[in-house]
């Protein structure tokens, strides 16, 4: 059976790609006929497996870790197309192994959805894990934030080497207290930047509410000290370095600190000494992952797509991309991948859009968004739940201005599809 599983899986993969099918089917086939395939293949990697999880920023952070490790000459296997569940990993492996099932890589860096990661780590205990944050994201899927924190705790508890934690997210930092096996390292944020990172606990602390006291902070391997328009300061090894950044958005750059901690741990355990300049250069060149803070060009002016999927992410998006001078569109869908529950819109303050107003609203919940803006006294141009005509009207009406679209996941896919008809949009297979 084992002899046939890899060739057969690869064959299914080819056929399903020819048919334009999803990425998971070949994974399903190989899992059925050869349940040990994934575990066996990943166990051959000399530097093991690193898992990246958390509610926000997994895709871009994973991309950063991969590029940082590649700058150190390592061969990295990763699940690039966002198939962040076990079957997707198996499918991605099928694409990279040779016909005899061998994987030519030093390490696997895998983005895993919190709930699926639990199943994955039970079968493949990772050597490294990087846990980013627990934000209010698709709570209708997991039930509660504390539940999500428990999922991340489980990933950490199965990690055999090093766990990298977000020092500034209390639910993530607290995981350290529950561990006795793995080594714990942190990434952190300068106090001056903390206010741009609301966590869900202080989302609603209105004027006059006491701010919960911060517990004593552990030492962080890498601390993000400052974020400029196209550069940032990171502190590590007792010194502060300034580097240019292609990434936009404070939260992306905070995740760069996370990626740096993990990459330094892994590279430090490799055969060759760490090339620190190479790491920094790679960091400065990382571009955002698909759809995350992408900048396209329409009518010779920038059009930014900002993916928003939970209150903290939306707040960070509004803060990271100031509205001044921009035409603004917001597209909110409530399909399963977006989260069906619209309550999160009420946990975001939209005052920052009051001055310029919002030119266009769209998506299946466009009128929920309109209602939300009405209560924050933000002027609304036009509302059309249909994305194609709404996007066309938005572009037509703001020809002389740079544009920004805040959108949920499936709204972003629809917008990219429309934009690909008029400008160059990266195609992700």
């Amino acid at each position, binding site marked *: 059976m084992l002899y046939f599983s890899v060739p057969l899986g690869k064959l299914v993969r080819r056929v399903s790609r020819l048919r334009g099918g999803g990425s998971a089917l070949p994974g399903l086939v190989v899992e059925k006929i050869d349940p040990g395939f994934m575990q066996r293949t990943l166990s051959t990697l000399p530097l093991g497996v690193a898992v990246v999880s958390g509610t926000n920023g997994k895709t871009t952070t994973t991309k950063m870790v991969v590029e940082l490790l590649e700058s150190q000459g390592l061969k990295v296997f990763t699940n690039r197309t966002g198939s962040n569940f076990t079957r997707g990993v198996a499918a991605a492996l099928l694409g990279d192994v040779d016909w005899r099932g061998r994987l030519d890589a030093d390490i696997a860096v895998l983005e895993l959805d919190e709930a699926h990661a639990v199943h994955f780590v039970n079968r493949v205990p990772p050597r490294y894990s990087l846990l980013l944050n627990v934000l209010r994201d698709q709570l209708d899927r997991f039930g509660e934030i504390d539940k999500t924190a428990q999922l991340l705790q489980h990933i950490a508890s199965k990690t055999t080497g090093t766990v990298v934690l977000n020092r500034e997210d209390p639910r993530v930092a607290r995981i350290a207290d529950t561990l006795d096996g793995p080594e714990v390292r942190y990434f952190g944020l300068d106090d001056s930047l903390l206010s741009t990172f609301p966590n869900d606990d202080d989302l609603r602390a209105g004027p006059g*509410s006491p701010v919960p006291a911060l517990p004593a902070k552990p030492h962080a391997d890498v601390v993000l000290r400052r974020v400029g328009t196209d550069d940032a300061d990171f502190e590590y090894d007792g010194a502060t370095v300034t580097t240019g950044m292609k990434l936009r958005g404070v939260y992306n750059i905070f995740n760069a600190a996370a990626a740096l901690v993990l990459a330094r741990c892994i590279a430090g355990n490799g055969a060759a000494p760490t090339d620190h300049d190479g790491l920094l250069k790679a960091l400065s060149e990382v571009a955002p992952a698909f759809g995350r803070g992408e900048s396209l060009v329409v009518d010779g002016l920038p059009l930014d797509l900002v993916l928003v999927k939970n209150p903290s992410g939306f707040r960070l998006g509004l803060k990271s991309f100031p509205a001044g001078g921009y035409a603004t569109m917001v597209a909110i869908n409530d399909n399963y991948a977006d989260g069906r529950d*619209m*309550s999160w819109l009420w946990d975001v303050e939209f005052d920052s859009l009051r001055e310029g107003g919002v030119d266009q609203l769209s998506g*299946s*919940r466009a009128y929920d968004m309109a209602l939300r803006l009405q209560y924050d006294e933000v002027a609304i141009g036009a509302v059309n739940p249909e994305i194609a005509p709404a996007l066309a009207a938005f572009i037509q009406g703001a020809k002389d201005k740079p544009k920004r679209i805040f959108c949920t996941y499936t709204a972003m896919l629809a917008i990219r599809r429309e934009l690909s008809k008029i400008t160059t949009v990266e195609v992700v297979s």
Partner: protein
Amino acid sequence: MSPASEESKGTIRVLQLYPRDMNIYGDWGNALVLQQRLRWHGYTPELLEYNVGDDFPSDVDLIVGGGGQDSGQLVIQDDLLSRESTLKELAEGGTPMLLICGLYQLFGRFFKTRTGSVIPGIGVLDVETHGTDERLIGNVTVSSPEFGDILGYENHSGQTTLGPGVQPLGTTPKGTGNNSSDGKEGARYRNIVASYLHGSLLPKNPAIADFLIRTAVERKYGSFSAGAPDDRYAVLAREHAARRPR
């Protein structure tokens, strides 16, 4: 005297109960809607907060309380019990209240967890809640004799049954509501509206918001004169929400 206070028809003190610990799924939206609609009706809102250990404010006209995670409920439990007599007095006296999810449960008689331990409530509402393994999640439409269709979203594993001392808020043509067996949602008692619906509840259901406001104003000033809030977006948001899948 400033022009604003000359024009105001009066001040309404709105108290948020435990906003620090019981505040999830857009509960803030309910407080924001009360605040803005009071203004649109020509009244001056005064938004107050009560958190664990605070002095309980006097002259409260309207109370709004939200949901929480299990951890939040544990934090407020003892403090809430210590305020039992105050809150009972306000409720029996007719103070309008909106209680969502977690505080709906804790205003009832008790919450019995899955493992069998009993968390006492303050017994303002004749309801009891039992923790289950089943999570009730999704869009809900409630048909209410008093407010028409109520639209929202539920996400809870506690299942509540009503005693004879309260009326249901309505029945659920779509979604589950109080529990997975009797097709009823929420509770009504005196001027209390209790519900599992968040999303937030009030923005898309201005009829409930205006009931709470009108009741608060009438109790304080004898009569209520309505303004003319623009509810075009609320009407459209309701139409579109009603068409979404469970």
